[in-house]
């Protein structure tokens, strides 16, 4: 792990009118690190993810990101063009519902190739070879390359979404409940796949989840949120095995043992 953080959030806050989205969140993510954001529904996890990925504009605080040239840039000062370039090259965003993150009417190959074409690839054969390579990496059979995602199962769609995001070798990936809505055995395989890709590619990941098992399997560090605030942070094992805050203790003790 490098000593310079990749992403820094300082005093981040968001209000939806009079209602609070999240408040005074500060965190750092280092290259190659997986950070889990956990908390119950309505605790501000998704708002936080939206703020970090510039999908939402903060009402307070700022987010800085270290660009490939080593410069630390305040994301709000980047132009829309620079931000969008960042979104489709250096970042990935895996949504809970794959239908939101995929083009459902476009074939699997087209979905994976879209980012490549967006950054200027203009050779059909190369785009297709790269798409096949990535489908193999996420365990989708090569003969499904021309099928559109409507013909895919939920787990396959989610794996396709991962391939589509990782094809430009991003450095930071945001995941919003990537295993939500999948059955347990499919979840386990998907988590295994994500864990493998993350370590192979040295990705930094910010993963939002309400599932503590997911956080334990994937993340190095975690942040516990409640009512829009961060109430506890620390190494995953430390937070889960020895929770300090009463709310975290409640959360940990609520997990059903199989």
């Amino acid at each position, binding site marked *: 792990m490098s000593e310079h953080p990749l992403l820094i959030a300082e005093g981040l806050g968001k209000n939806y009118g009079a209602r609070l989205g999240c408040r005074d969140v500060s965190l750092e993510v280092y290259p190659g690190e997986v950070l889990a954001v956990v908390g119950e529904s309505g605790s501000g996890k998704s708002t936080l993810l939206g703020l970090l990925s510039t999908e939402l504009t903060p009402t307070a605080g700022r987010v800085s990101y270290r660009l490939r040239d080593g410069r630390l840039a305040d994301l709000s000062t980047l132009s829309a063009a620079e931000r969008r370039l960042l979104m489709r090259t250096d970042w990935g965003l895996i949504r809970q519902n794959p239908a939101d993150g995929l083009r459902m009417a476009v074939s699997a190959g087209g979905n994976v190739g879209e980012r490549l*074409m*967006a950054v200027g690839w*203009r050779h*059909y054969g190369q785009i297709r070879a790269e798409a096949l390579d990535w489908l193999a990496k996420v365990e989708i059979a090569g003969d499904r390359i021309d099928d559109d995602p409507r013909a895919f199962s939920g787990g396959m769609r989610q794996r396709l979404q991962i391939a589509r995001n990782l094809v430009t070798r991003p450095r930071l990936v945001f995941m919003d409940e990537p295993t939500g809505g999948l059955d347990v055995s499919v979840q386990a395989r998907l988590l295994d796949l994500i864990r493998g890709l993350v370590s192979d590619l040295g990705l930094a990941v910010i993963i939002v989840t309400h599932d503590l098992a997911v956080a334990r399997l994937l993340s190095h560090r975690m942040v516990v949120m409640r009512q829009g605030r961060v109430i506890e942070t620390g190494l995953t094992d430390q937070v889960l095995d020895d929770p300090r805050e009463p709310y975290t203790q409640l959360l940990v003790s609520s997990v059903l043992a199989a």
Partner: protein
Amino acid sequence: MSAQATSSMPRSSMPDITYNFAYLDEQTKRMIRRAILKAIAVPGYQVPFAAREMPMPYGWGTGGVQVTAAVLGPKDVLKVIDQGADDTTNAVAIRGFFEKTARVATTTATADATVIQTRHRIPETALNENQILVYQVPIPEPLRFLEPRETETRQLHALAEYGLMHVKLYEDIARHGHIATTYAYPVEVAGRYVMDPSPIPKFDNPKMDDCPALQLFGAGREKRIYAIPPHTRVHSLDFEDHPFKVQHFAKPCALCAATGVYLDEVILDDKGGRMFVCSDTDYCNTRQAQGHVGELGVPAEDAA
């Protein structure tokens, strides 16, 4: 003045309508001309304009008619074509409209016209710098079927993010083995904006490149005007390993034996008989008058 008007009232119950030159009022024409000037200044960019209701339904060339009305002068010679033909309903109706409202001369000869309004074709005869080609456009947004949100497509144009357009071509090759888009084939204008050339066959795309005539595009329902100024680079999008190709016809025109022109298929009977003839009727007639005869054609002197 009102007394005069009353005394000259015709006895018929039909009101005596005097149209302003070319139907539209002067303020409207000024508004459209401003949009046209902006469109010429930013080649390929879709300029919004306040399209008016025209006395014809949407889809019948209301956008093209408004652009024509705005550029037409009393000395202009107008030609109107629909799918290359001068004698189809849409062409006849619009030509009649301007004969009535602007009293301009009309022609079917491409070389004699100064303003040519077209639906779905570019004439075979090369255009010159004294001509304006006005296209009727149904859907001006090339990204529309890939990205339904107008706010998003405007962003994509503003930031020149045209990866999506290639996704469409990729899908074509993946499904059909070649780029199967044959009309409304997307082009990049002057190295910047990607533009829908209206539903012309891709056969006509190369004619837009470095064309000496001014090309104006009007979409009435969608309220957009865009333009290609004379001698502008127009590049049809493609892949390095699947380059842009135009349609190829196996046989020459059955009436005038022309090759290298766009042909229409005409069904002759219910036993599979068919022939391929020039879609550009003026071009075909001119060639027949010059004595060219195709395999199903009749020599000009015999026909007369």
